């Protein structure tokens, strides 16, 4: 009798296994396809519909791995809607707390938290800045650098200058030219003396010249209407960013940015003086 019972049970188990497996496969397909739908909607910036699908996914399949990842996309949708910043912030913060959250999405979520915190601060929520300041000490370079870069835009200079040590570190240690230029401009904004110290700490061989000077004087004026002293590394960018009228005057005299750079590079201490038709004088020199 026992043998018969055992055989029946074994038969039942073996018989039900494929059915259970098929059922599980169906569930995986259902949550995954719902998640894919969400991502397509996010791609097309259809935020409200995507939000509806995310809620459906999290409700129907609360233990699906896609339900966790959908939290990040919930943040994206709320952020995209524009008027639900605080909810978006909550969603991103919930995502980074998840066990098994993916590293690249964590970095993205941290970046969004920094963006939203700055928006909230500029909108009058002074406490929101804490979300950026705490990230200045993040172990992850990507998060720490981005927090410092964004903090440099804060209108309160006392707060903005807190970004200076991280920005200075970027100038001293990083090699990516895009990141370096961003850090240099951010430092020029919040602490030019820190930039000077960072540049002077670099080996001289990296650049023969240290500083680019530009001075523009109106006709008959001794004091310049415009002047700047910036690291030579930003020279190309600075010359491109001159006022349109000044750029036109330079072009009219047969100079373009490449020619100016070449002439300055020929001699370390050369001074380029360009006289405009209206009597204005543009002086560019390096040392």
């Amino acid at each position, binding site marked *: 009798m026992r043998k018969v019972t055992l055989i029946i049970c074994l038969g039942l188990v073996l018989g039900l296994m494929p059915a259970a497996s098929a059922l599980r496969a169906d569930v995986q397909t259902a949550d995954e396809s719902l998640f894919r739908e969400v991502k397509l909607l996010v791609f097309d910036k259809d935020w409200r519909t995507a939000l509806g699908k995310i809620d459906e996914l999290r409700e129907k399949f609360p233990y699906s791995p896609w339900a966790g990842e959908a939290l990040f996309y919930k943040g994206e949708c709320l952020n995209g809607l524009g008027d639900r910043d605080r909810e978006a912030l909550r969603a991103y913060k919930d995502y980074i707390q998840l066990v098994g959250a993916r590293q690249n999405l964590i970095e993205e979520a941290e970046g969004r938290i920094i963006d939203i915190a700055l928006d909230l601060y500029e909108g009058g929520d002074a406490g929101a800045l804490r979300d950026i300041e705490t990230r200045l000490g993040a172990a992850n370079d990507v998060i720490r650098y981005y927090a410092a870069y964004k903090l440099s835009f804060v209108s309160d200079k006392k707060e903005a200058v807190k970004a200076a040590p991280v920005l200075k570190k970027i100038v001293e240690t990083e090699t990516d030219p895009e990141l370096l230029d961003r850090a240099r401009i951010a430092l*020029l904004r919040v602490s030019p003396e820190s930039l000077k110290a960072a540049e002077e700490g670099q080996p001289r061989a990296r650049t023969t010249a240290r500083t680019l*000077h530009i001075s523009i004087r109106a006709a008959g004026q001794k004091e310049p209407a415009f002047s700047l002293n910036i690291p030579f590394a930003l020279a190309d960018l600075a010359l491109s960013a001159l006022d349109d009228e000044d750029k036109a005057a330079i072009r009219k005299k047969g100079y373009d940015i490449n020619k100016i750079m070449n002439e300055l590079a020929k001699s370390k201490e050369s001074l380029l003086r360009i006289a405009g038709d209206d009597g204005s004088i543009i002086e560019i020199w390096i040392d």
Partner: protein
Amino acid sequence: MNNDDEMKFFLKETEAVREEIRRVSGSVDWEALPGLIADKALAEPRRAEPAWPAAGPWGWLWALRMKPVLAGLAAGLVVGAAAMYFILKAPSAGPAADSAYYASGEFLDRAELEMARRNTLDYLEKSQYMLLDVFDSAGKGPAEPAALRNERARDLLQKKKYLNAQLERFQMAKAKAICDQIEMLFRELSEISEEMSATELQRIRVLVEERQLLLKINLVKRELQSGV
């Protein structure tokens, strides 16, 4: 007066002087005289020293007034040192002597805008190459290793983070919209593993074609390039 008379007169006057000398010599205590001379010689400078003016912040000027050579020397040193300082501090070329970095906020904004334009162009170009690689991988072209593709996608995602801030700030809406769509694709690419790549890459390829992403990238690139 003849010569004899002159001689007599001379000897008489000399005798008078000699008598005076004898008288004075007799009154001198020759043993005590050296000590007396030494005492007077040592006492002389102390007596000549003027009274020191009342102590005060300008008291040192008194000493300079009394010692013109020293005062002149000190003044020369101060002026010389100051002149050397300014000569060495001044730049070797150029009209301004200031070497500290500075730039106006307005200029920095323009520099940021220029940087946004350049970096967006660079991002779009790199994105194009990346998407063309995906097309190759999804079709019959040479497939790029998944690890390398994922790394490149992550790198572009990081760049995009900074672009977001700049594109929003300078209201470059068209560029922002296309960069956002590309970002979404790169997020997908950064997660695709080697074994599931064929199907996933095909899916992304279809999406890129349906949304005419490469055409849109070219149009935005042209707009940004015209801003040079």
